[in-house]
């Protein structure tokens, strides 16, 4: 019993980390008013960029250094996702394209390009499932030594790769940035009322670009973690990254745009998502009902938040709209 609860929690934490990274990246972006629905696509792009990067490094180096592997994976994933965010920003901020359409297109584009390169990579490696970036994957999955050996607490808190802790720290830092710093205040102003921000001398366009691109970069790290830890350094064309991407978007709403809620929210989503696996007596069809739980919870949260009608809990007022100074 205890072991199965422990393994449920572990699965939830690993799952939660993927969507937590996706969620806080998206929060940063949405706080500037950019509703980027390209989260799944960006995760795809981050994942494949990291995989390609380390695949060639590990293939070329005699003795791949684990540290360098990690750095390459993170750098490739972040930069590629940042570039995807830049594309989104250019289309929606500079050209003022519709954010919903652009985001959805980015999702389709990201999944297409990632699966194209994933397929090519499989071919290079000599067949599906043959990709091996074991050094990188192992580095990502290294547990904290000693601490992880403590009974119960060890497996519960310390038996994860470093990205799990990185995600929590990133969420705390983002929370601090948004609520305590003046730059964070300015960023929130841009998402709430860009006209007022503009009149106060804030460079609205610059803030939107930076928040959207860095947000996309963080989101992409979720994809890196997914491919390196969650599926252990392989490539699968089954679209499961996309599912997690949409859950990350749902999680943004669930957290009412507060990164600190993203920490526990992501794990709750993980628990709900994996619950079916640990509940005895479910057949294939009833499993699917349980898999819907995260979405149902999000809807309930939305309803509750709307009922309470507290302005701070709603999204940024100018979310999803483009800003043009001379429009009146």
């Amino acid at each position: 019993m205890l072991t199965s609860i422990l393994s449920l929690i572990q699965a939830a934490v690993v799952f939660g980390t993927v969507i937590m990274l996706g969620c806080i990246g998206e929060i940063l972006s949405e706080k500037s008013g950019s509703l980027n629905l390209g989260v799944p696509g960006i995760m795809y792009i981050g994942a494949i960029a990291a995989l390609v990067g380390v695949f060639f490094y590990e293939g070329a180096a005699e003795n791949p250094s684990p540290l360098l592997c990690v750095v390459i994976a993170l750098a490739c994933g972040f930069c590629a996702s940042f570039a995807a965010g830049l594309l989104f920003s250019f289309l929606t901020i500079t050209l003022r394209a519709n954010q919903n359409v652009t985001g959805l297109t980015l999702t389709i584009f990201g999944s297409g390009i990632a699966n194209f390169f994933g397929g090519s990579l499989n071919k290079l490696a000599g067949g599906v499932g043959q990709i091996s970036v074991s050094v990188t994957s192992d580095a990502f999955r290294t547990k904290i030594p000693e601490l992880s050996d403590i009974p119960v607490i060890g497996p519960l808190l310390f038996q994860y790769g470093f990205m799990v802790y990185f995600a929590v720290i990133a969420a705390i830092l983002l929370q601090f940035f948004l609520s305590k710093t003046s730059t964070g205040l300015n960023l929130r102003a841009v998402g709430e009322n860009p006209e007022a921000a503009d009149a106060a001398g804030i460079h609205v366009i610059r803030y939107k670009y930076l928040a959207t691109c860095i947000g996309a970069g963080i989101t992409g790290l979720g994809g890196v973690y997914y491919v390196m830890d969650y599926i252990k350094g392989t490539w699968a064309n089954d679209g499961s990254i996309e599912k997690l991407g949409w859950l990350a978007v749902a999680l943004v709403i669930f957290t009412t745009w507060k990164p600190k809620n993203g920490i526990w929210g992501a794990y709750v989503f993980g628990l709900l998502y994996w619950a079916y696996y640990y509940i005895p007596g479910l057949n294939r069809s009833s499993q699917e009902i349980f898999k819907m739980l995260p979405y149902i919870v999000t809807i309930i949260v939305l309803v509750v938040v709307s009922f309470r009608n507290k302005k701070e809990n709603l999204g940024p007022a100018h979310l999803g709209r483009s800003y043009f100074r001379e429009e009146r």
Partner: protein
Amino acid sequence: MEQQTAIRMQNITKAFGQVLANHNVSIDIRKGEILSLLGENGSGKTTLMNMLSGIYYPDAGKIFVNGEAASIRSPGDAFAYGIGMIHQHFKLIDVFSAVENVVLGLRGKDANLKLAAKKVCEICETYGFEIDPGQKVYNMSVSQKQTLEIIKVLYRGADILILDEPTAVLTPQETERLFHVIRNMKKAGKAIVIITHKLHEVLSISDRVTILRRGEYVGTIETKDATVQSLTEMMVGKKITLNIERPQVANPQKRIEVKNLTVMRQDGVRLLDNVSFTANSGEILGIAGISGCGQKELLESIAGLQKVSDDASILYCAPQTDASIELVGKNPKAIRDLGITLSFVPEDRLGMGLVGSMGMTDNMMLKNYRRGHTPFMERKEPKELAEKIKEELEVVTPGINIPVRRLSGGNVQKVLVGREIAAAPTVLMTAYAVRGLDIHTSYTIYRLLNEQKRAGVAVIYVGEDLDVLLELCDRILVLCAGHVNGIVDGRATTKEEVGMLMTHLQKEDGRNAV
């Protein structure tokens, strides 16, 4: 004592496309002085001041700040020169607290919330404001928001304050409090400009008045030498003869009778206050007033689009049967189902009147889409109507199926007016029917309105050009801040009389004492 000049604007000209918003305007703003900038709507007051606050850049002319030539290209530049403008539409973030709004966009020590809260309290003490630095903006009243805007500007060290129609949204008590603060700022040596069109405020607060008319500088006088009459004359100018036809009223009959009509905005401000009047058949009733004085709400109340007070009554007197029908509480469909044809040409032509992305035919169908009895559209009739309107009103369009958005303003208006008239209304309401139209099209509209008048329709014409109102309308109802300030005979009245009624509330009744 000689007062120092804070700002001198010299020969400023600014055009938007073909329209000259300011033409060769020169004004002086002095330290320790309150200057009123007076003029009708569209006289270029706000445009002129926006060039000081960095929103617009002048096409020609020079600006001197404290004697030195200045180039103000952004709101940031304006702050650097110590110029702060309080816009009519507040630029505040709703979910932020007062002090968070104050420090927005600032850096370093200025952006420290604790220090800022302290400084805000100091500013409040100096000038006699009251505000809670931690209060969220969405919990604030309009006057608190305005106070916050003023504090925001003072916090940034402005010595020159421009207030754009600051009293438009305030109650008399709040206005008094604002004036008290403004006088304190004047004592502290700040230069203050108030943009307004309310004469009694000009007389009560300012030291000098500068008057603009249609973008041109008319003159500057000392307030102590000014009277309501002299200011009105300078503001509205001499009467211009337009030679608009005005047929005699034949057989007028009561058609619409409005009694005790009050419309409240959500925050309790009265947009229309106890309005009563009648509109007769075969007559054009003009409605004059500074824009935003309740014209829109008045027409929308009759059309069944506004929520009105419980004791209001809008009676429709049917032409043949003389039956009186209460329109309050009925939506446009209910009114139409009673067999009453009210036609409404709204101010917002492509927003409320027509669908911009649809052609003329489809727009005609909006009015009678309910007539068909099959799931399919019957396009024949509307198509004929569209053709007819195109021909009779000389609508310039490549074809009746071209989206009306692509037509010029005048042609859009012809389509809209044509459709509304084609419904054979008994009441025709038009809001700013000739706004933005050229002379020729304007006269076409006047002709159409007169035709309807002859046909026995009760025409209500909301207008902004006093010369047109004086020549076209049989009676003119003048609105001032939601009140009926008077109903005058269009043939007997003068431009000065209407101008006075528009800008000077006749009686200060106890509407806030309630």
